């Protein structure tokens, strides 16, 4: 069973994995900070959060990239570097396959929708669903 203390350690691990600063801690080091063996950490993390620590990290980086492409003036290369990818090619490939649009197409689609500078447009931060209205 997951005790509260263990649940909180897993949440702290998730915070570390979502931190898009480079260089990021390796999954091995995040596991060590969580006081778990790597194998046990990956297995438990997946069971609780529905994705592996690595998938969580990649997902957080792509989310951050989507945000920067929409609200910042950074070039696509700078966005790629800012979210911790070292190769523009692998960033663009991964972004396109996960998001369904290339980084530049994503920017062209959502950048014009920004109404308040520095804030995501409502299309990307839904407020019309039942509880978050």
């Amino acid at each position, binding site marked *: *069973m*997951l*005790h*509260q203390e263990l*649940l*909180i350690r897993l*949440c702290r691990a998730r915070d570390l994995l979502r931190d898009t600063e480079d260089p990021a801690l390796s999954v091995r080091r995040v596991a060590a900070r969580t006081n778990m063996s790597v194998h046990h950490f990956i297995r*438990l993390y997946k*069971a*609780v*959060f*529905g*994705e592996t620590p690595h998938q969580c990290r990649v997902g957080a980086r792509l989310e951050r990239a989507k945000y920067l492409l929409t609200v910042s003036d950074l070039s696509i290369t700078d966005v790629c570097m800012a979210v911790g990818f070292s190769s523009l090619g692998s960033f663009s490939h991964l972004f396109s396959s996960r998001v369904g649009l290339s980084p530049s197409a994503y920017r062209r689609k959502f950048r014009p929708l920004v109404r308040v500078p520095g804030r*995501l447009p409502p*299309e*990307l*931060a*839904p*407020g019309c*669903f*039942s*509880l*978050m209205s």
Partner: protein
Amino acid sequence: MKIKLNSILVDDQEKALRFYTNVLGFEKGKDIPVGEFRWITVVSPEGHPDVELVLEPNANPAAKTYQQALFEQGIPLTAFEATDIHAECRRLKERGVQFTMEPTGAGPVTIAVFADTCGNLIQLYQPAGE
């Protein structure tokens, strides 16, 4: 006026649909594209067919903050009723679901809490006498 919808925040709607159908055993109700997201509902085959659970994206930053704070405090976002909570918990554990509370007597109900793999804790409860 009627109450027909309950709503739950999820970090990934596709992953949520898989968990709520394949693991929990609910059935897909509606699945309607809404811009970048989807209006997805699931229905319990054991419950009223017109009471639906909305799998709502947590893309709004306020939703993420709320969801994460509840999770870290061990507080379930919603609750589902079980007719045999012990059997239900065994079934879910066999499918790899992680519990933060084993079935526990709490006055007139027995409750248990599990992680839904989408950023939430969910309570199961069984009223006494069932």
